[in-house]
């Protein structure tokens, strides 16, 4: 079975989700639940750290698509950081860099929120 965990914490009112393991059609519902919880708690500024994510399929990418509109409606954003080449390649093939800001590391992603506000 694919292993996937999400560890969430907060930094200056920005929620950081660390993804670990394999994000596929089996584990995508876990990420969906995490996003739902964040939005229900009124957290719309989100940084997703991919450092420990080994794998993603289109089912995983679909989860980001599912929530981005609502997040931006509330003047928030989902910013992505620390992707490995293998994970970035899938995002890139599907044209996601047009829709999402992707940063080299978490710090840059956090700073980009401050620069806007």
């Amino acid at each position: 079975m694919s292993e996937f965990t999400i560890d969430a914490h907060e930094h200056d009112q920005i929620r950081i989700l660390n993804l670990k393991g394999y994000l596929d059609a089996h584990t995508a519902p876990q990420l969906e639940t995490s996003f739902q919880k964040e939005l229900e708690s009124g957290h719309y500024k989100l940084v997703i750290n991919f450092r420990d994510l080994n794998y993603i399929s289109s089912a995983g990418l679909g989860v980001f698509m599912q929530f981005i509109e609502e997040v931006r409606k509330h003047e928030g954003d989902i910013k992505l950081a620390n992707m490995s080449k293998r994970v970035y390649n899938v995002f890139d093939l599907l044209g996601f860099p047009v829709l999402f800001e992707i940063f080299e590391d978490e710090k840059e992603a956090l700073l980009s929120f401050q620069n806007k506000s």
Partner: protein
Amino acid sequence: MGSNKKHTARQLRILSTTENLELARRFVADSARQHGFDQDDIDKITVAVDEACTNIIKHAYKKAPNREIDIEVRVEGPQRSPRKFMVIIEDHGAPFDPTTYHAPDLQKYFKEYRVGGLGIFLMNKLMDEVEYTAGPGKSNQIRLVKYLPS
């Protein structure tokens, strides 16, 4: 190890749950590695097979958990050029009609924030050939091909 193999075929049967996607991925990644693909190509083949199996589970079998998905890896003999590494995935669910599929306009797709439906697009991008066969009374087959490094 295995470098003198002229013809190989390996099979794996999984049941139609997303839990088994990892088994399918590991099976094709191991096969691709044994045939000399680099990590970049192994990753591409792995994602394509994951997408194909995910589509079968969701669409052909409509999430029924106890149906069979047969995966076979076959490599053409050395006389062919380019030599093809083929993954043939077979199911007995609702057929997919490739003539009804249109590649999504990604820009439009994103404007509408649509979710899902990107699997076939990805498979076509990741593999050298993608072919579907189905027919009345027949199983559905998808054949994913990557050319072997020369």
